[in-house]
């Protein structure tokens, strides 16, 4: 297996975001990462690991943004979204990141066939990557909701 570089991961991730949005029928727009008015407060993380490569992907947004993402997944109208329970919001954002990382895994499968998906973890705040992991962020709008997609890449493999 070959180690996948941060640049390769980022390119594959951006492409995967676009692919997922196209299939699921919502807009995805990549934004400059320096928007001072935007601060994500919660989201879901999922790991993708093999003997050679190890990453974590996080899909983060504000509390209202997480609610909007879950509602978008369920095709709910805005007034219906208000009824979503926190567990459903966590579940929905987790499922979105699960789909995204699944597509990402397939995108890099020719380079690493041993990658294994983890299970999504919902966090308040954001995860701080370990000292052997890099962190990159893609800021984007998914279906009109501003989000951050974090990429943590292990710099020394698993």
């Amino acid at each position, binding site marked *: 297996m070959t180690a996948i570089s941060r640049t390769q991961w980022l390119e594959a991730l951006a492409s995967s975001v676009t692919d*997922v949005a196209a*299939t*699921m*029928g*919502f807009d995805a727009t990549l934004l400059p990462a320096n928007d001072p008015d935007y601060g994500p407060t919660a989201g879901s993380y999922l790991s993708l690991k093999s003997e050679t490569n190890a990453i974590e992907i996080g899909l983060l947004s504000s509390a209202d943004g997480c609610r909007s993402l*879950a509602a*978008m*997944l*369920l*095709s*709910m*109208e805005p007034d219906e979204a208000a009824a979503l329970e926190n*567990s*459903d919001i966590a*579940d*929905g954002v*987790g*499922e979105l990141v*699960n*789909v995204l*990382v*699944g*597509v990402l*895994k*397939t995108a890099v*499968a020719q380079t690493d*066939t041993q990658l294994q*998906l*983890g*299970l999504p973890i919902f966090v308040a705040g954001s995860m701080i990557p370990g000292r052997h992991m890099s962190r990159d962020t893609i800021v984007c709008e998914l*279906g009109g909701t501003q989000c951050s997609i974090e990429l943590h890449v292990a710099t020394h493999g698993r």
Partner: protein
Amino acid sequence: VGPFRAWCSLNGAAVSDDVAAVKILVVDDSKVMRMIVKKSIRQAGFGTAETDDAGNASEAIEKIGSFRPDLVLCDWNMPGMTGLELLTNLRASGNAVKFGFITSEGSSETRQAAADAGALFLLAKPFTAEDLKTHLDVVLAA
């Protein structure tokens, strides 16, 4: 039209009487995903199918015994017993219920493992209701 409704749009798929008695069990640890799959079944033209769901493999084994589905639609990655382990256990116990995966695991290795274990298809997420209809039409007609 919301994204999921667009995602599931089928341009007027008809519901036929011959699927009225079909029973489908949806197995996924995500409640949201179970809701989406059941909605997709309806959007795929199987609105008269009777559906039930299970949040893990152990619950699925119970419901396969009591609900007696014609088809199980199952996630791959679940806490505890995975979908593949569930299918393997079912076949080892002599249960031949029709079984398909709906999963974010879409690699060729995963597809081969699913087929080797006896799955009739593997539908990778994200999917459209039309994708699901393609599989349901084949599997439930057999």
